[in-house]
């Protein structure tokens, strides 16, 4: 790789930051922060001990909601998929629930669980549940019949067929579904925290605006949300790349 190719992305980012900077400073009455003010905002949040606290709070909610949904929805989806492998008609209940944004559940979850962690976790759980269940259903439906036949031919049935054929056959698709759903969960936690709780990165953003229009902290919060989202995605992608699972992604 030539040095030019290597530094091109860095130059591109620098250019964007430059445009951001000059766009902000050219305004008459400045409200939005420059990139540097955003950095100082992040530093200020760190010094006040809020940044780590809020990141941990957000990740805590996402983890519980997402893991809980995964543990329930994936086995359920796999089971549903297995028993209706031959039918193409999906459960109409799922089709009605699916277009409802998880955010539409905010009032109801506050009604049930009050303002607090449980309401936010519940929202993430809801947001993750249907996508993960669909992943499970589709993963089973997509197993080529020839693998199942080959497994049965070698005398497998029941649990042993599940462990030795069905499970390995669906894992790659499950991991893709988990990665996409974790992205959704991360979107939802920010929205949930704006309304349902008093901590977390979503709360940080509304709070910074309400308490004195601190738009430097608002943008600092946005930057942190982006970076952590990217980190989560990278983490899931590294799972996809592990050698044992790689077979499902490279088509021959």
């Amino acid at each position, binding site marked *: 790789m030539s040095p030019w190719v290597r530094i091109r992305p860095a130059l591109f980012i620098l250019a964007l930051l430059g445009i951001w900077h000059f766009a902000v400073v050219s305004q008459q009455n400045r409200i939005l922060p420059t990139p540097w003010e955003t950095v100082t905002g992040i530093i200020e949040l760190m010094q006040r001990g809020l940044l780590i606290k809020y990141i941990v709070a957000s990740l805590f909610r996402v983890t519980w909601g997402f893991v809980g949904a995964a543990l329930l929805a994936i086995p359920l989806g796999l089971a549903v998929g297995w028993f209706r492998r031959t039918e193409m008609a999906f459960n109409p209940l799922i089709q009605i629930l699916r277009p409802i944004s998880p955010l539409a559940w905010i009032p109801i979850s506050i009604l049930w669980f009050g303002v607090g962690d449980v309401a936010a976790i519940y929202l993430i759980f809801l947001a993750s549940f249907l996508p993960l269940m669909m992943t499970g259903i589709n993963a089973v439906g997509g197993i080529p019949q020839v693998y199942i*036949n*080959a497994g*049965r*031919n070698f*005398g497998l049935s029941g649990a042993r067929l599940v462990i030795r054929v069905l499970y*390995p056959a669906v*894992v790659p698709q499950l991991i893709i579904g988990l990665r996409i759903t974790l992205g959704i969960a991360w979107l939802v936690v920010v929205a949930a925290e704006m309304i349902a709780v008093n901590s977390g990165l979503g709360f940080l953003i509304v709070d910074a605006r309400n308490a004195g229009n601190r738009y430097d902290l608002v943008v600092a919060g946005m930057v942190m949300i982006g970076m952590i989202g990217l980190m989560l995605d990278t983490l899931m992608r590294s799972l996809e790349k592990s050698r044992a*699972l790689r*077979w499902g992604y490279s088509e021959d």
Partner: protein
Amino acid sequence: MTEEKVKTPAAKAVKTKLRATGINKTFKRDGTETSVLENVELEVAQGEFLCLLGPSGCGKSTLLNICAGFLSPTTGTVTIDGEPVTGPDPRRIFVFQERGVFPWLTVEGNIAFGLAKLSKAEQAERIAHYIKMVGLQGFEKAYPQELSGGMKQRLEVARALAVNPDMLFLDEPFGALDSITRLIMRGELLRIWEAERKTIIFVTHDIEEAVQLADRVVVMSARPATIQTIVEIDIEHPRDISSPRYLELRDGIFNEIGLAHKI
């Protein structure tokens, strides 16, 4: 169809391994029924090498799947060793036209798939033996997507042979191989068959392949498939593929299918 006594060149009357009687198969799709197999009667002798030959789409795979227990016939029954076939069985291994090697297992892992009951040492020995036989040395740790189409076919044949079944259902197992490898694999298959006398039903649409391999060639008509004729190949192995008898049998099948043997 003529009712004939099952014969092989070696023995006059031998034990029947598989008997299919009155097989009909219709598939329903979008409300319309298509008849794929019509009144198929088939007897396969113990240790026989039988080829099913017919044009693409006539129902060879369907018939093979019915014999192996993966599909049930609309009417009719299949018995193997006198017992009705109700499902697949590890004593009879199917090599699938759609390539049934498991992409999540290595070459070794695929061959070991049916060997769980053996000790580790025995497994290793079998794996090595069959990898050598199908010429996949050096690819023991490779995953199927790192193999060519023909290598995958050879791998699946190795996986089937490794469990030492007494019957093999082979659905165009050498279809993706180049003509040289195909000849080698035919030779290997014949060698194994002569040594172990497994009963083999081999589906192909290659007339030459059928005449080179089979004791009898079952010629199927276009859909809905019936058995058009059964040709006995009374040539000893190794077969001289330029001998007059070979050419006579081959051209007889060409004529039977309605192809003049000229381009």
